[in-house]
């Protein structure tokens, strides 16, 4: 089994425009998706992220706050997943019910296996 990081990306918050009924369905659907994968031992971790934070960078000998991305896209959560290979990880990702209800992007990245580190 290989490890994958899935970064859930969106512009603004696609959920903000959902109705109360749809929000409840979102909890039920996404919760079910995560639970199923956790029960199968494939989901090692899944967390939402708060919408504001900081980007730190190094410039002229000092750590500075920024620069910020031009785009409004932010990472709003992540999954840490186990799968046979990239194709399987992609297939699992396609099953994320959030795709049905708004403009979400999920970046699927294999975790690089480095001898002695992980």
């Amino acid at each position: 089994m290989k490890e994958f990081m899935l970064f859930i990306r969106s512009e603004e918050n696609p959920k903000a425009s959902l109705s109360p009924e749809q929000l409840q369905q979102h909890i039920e659907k996404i919760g079910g998706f995560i639970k199923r994968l956790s029960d199968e031992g494939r989901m090692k971790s899944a967390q939402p992220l708060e919408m504001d934070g900081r980007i730190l960078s190094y410039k002229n000998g000092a750590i500075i706050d920024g620069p910020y991305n031009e785009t409004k896209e932010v990472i709003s959560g992540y999954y840490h997943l186990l799968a046979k290979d990239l194709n399987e990880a992609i297939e699992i990702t396609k099953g994320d019910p959030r795709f049905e209800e708004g403009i979400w992007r999920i970046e699927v990245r294999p975790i690089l296996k480095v001898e002695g580190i992980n």
Partner: protein
Amino acid sequence: MKEYTKNNSSELTGHFFRKEYGKMVSVITRYIGTENVETAEDIVQETLLRAVEHWQKEIPENPQAWLYKTAKNLTLNILKRKKYQKHYEAIEARNVKALENISFSEKLIMDEQLKMMFVCCHPSISENSQITLILKILCGFSISEIANSFFSTNETINKRLVRGRKQLRENKVNFEIPQKINKNLNIVLKTIYLLFNEGYFPSQKNESIRYDLCLEAIRLAKILISSASIRGKSDCHALLALMYLNASRFKARIDEEGHTVEMEKQDRKKWNQELIQRGVQHLNLATEEEKNSIFLILATISANHCIAPSFEQTNWTEILSLYDRLIEHEDSPLTRLNRSVALAKVKGNRMAIAELKKLESISDIGSHYLFHFTLGEFYNRENKRNKAIDQFKKALALAKNGRDINLLKKKLIGLVPNYQS
């Protein structure tokens, strides 16, 4: 309220969010005023969004308490935030303490929802906006859900909401039960009945949303009945009876393929006996005051249908006399059209046909598909095939929703063997 809380550790009951939305907006509006009702709506939407983030992996022990606490804190933050202070100064001084100490008891929630009903139905607000405000604020439907169930557009529904909220602001509508409660109560009852009918008349799509509208109308009427502020509830009982009795036939009116089944052909075993019983109970309570109202007559007509063993064995004489009484209250072409069905049963189809022709000459009822449909039925029963076909064709040209169109086509195919639609 038990029925809305979760039933096990990982599930929420049906429409939990939608129902909590209306409760929370009502309670918050009490503290920030009806002129800020949109802020209350935003606070509650934000509360639900936060719940989504926090509940993804596990739903808390007491989801209701979690929501109320979050909504309360968000409201307090807004009241305390500096940039709002000018606008909210007066509100803040008055209400922060009260809001900090508030406990969301069942009674408080009921009381505030009741007040909100009267706020949404304030006489200064147009009828369209009243019902839209109720659906958005008290029932927790989104703009597009309301648009779907009304066969309208998001823009139209949004306009009605904006206009309604503006009228609340401009008329400085207080968040309270009005002094002259009876005048406003009539508007509230009428709006609830409109809401019910919006859901009751079958459509091709959104079946579940539309049945929800009926259930919401019943829920709102129950709040009125449990209120201590309203004295003389016979009208409320009559309306609730009417809605229970009509709702009892909901499932029998549509067959498995989604086509309308006329009452004559409905399987009466599918009528919901529990709802009929509740309807009859409220009908009895409604008659205690010996006050005659449109709802009471309509409910009594509906009850007559519900308790009849078959269509033929229905007490049509009683129903006809109820329609005669109804016309004394509300002499509308549509009421007379409905009356003609009972008239045909009691005095014969020819009499009913004559009555309808007269009605067509003095009103614009001829622009309604139901008029031609009914007239076509009478001709058909009299074996006047060509006249029946003629009327059904007129009805078909005027019918708007898919189910009515299907039913009419079926009628025409029955009369014209090689009818091409």
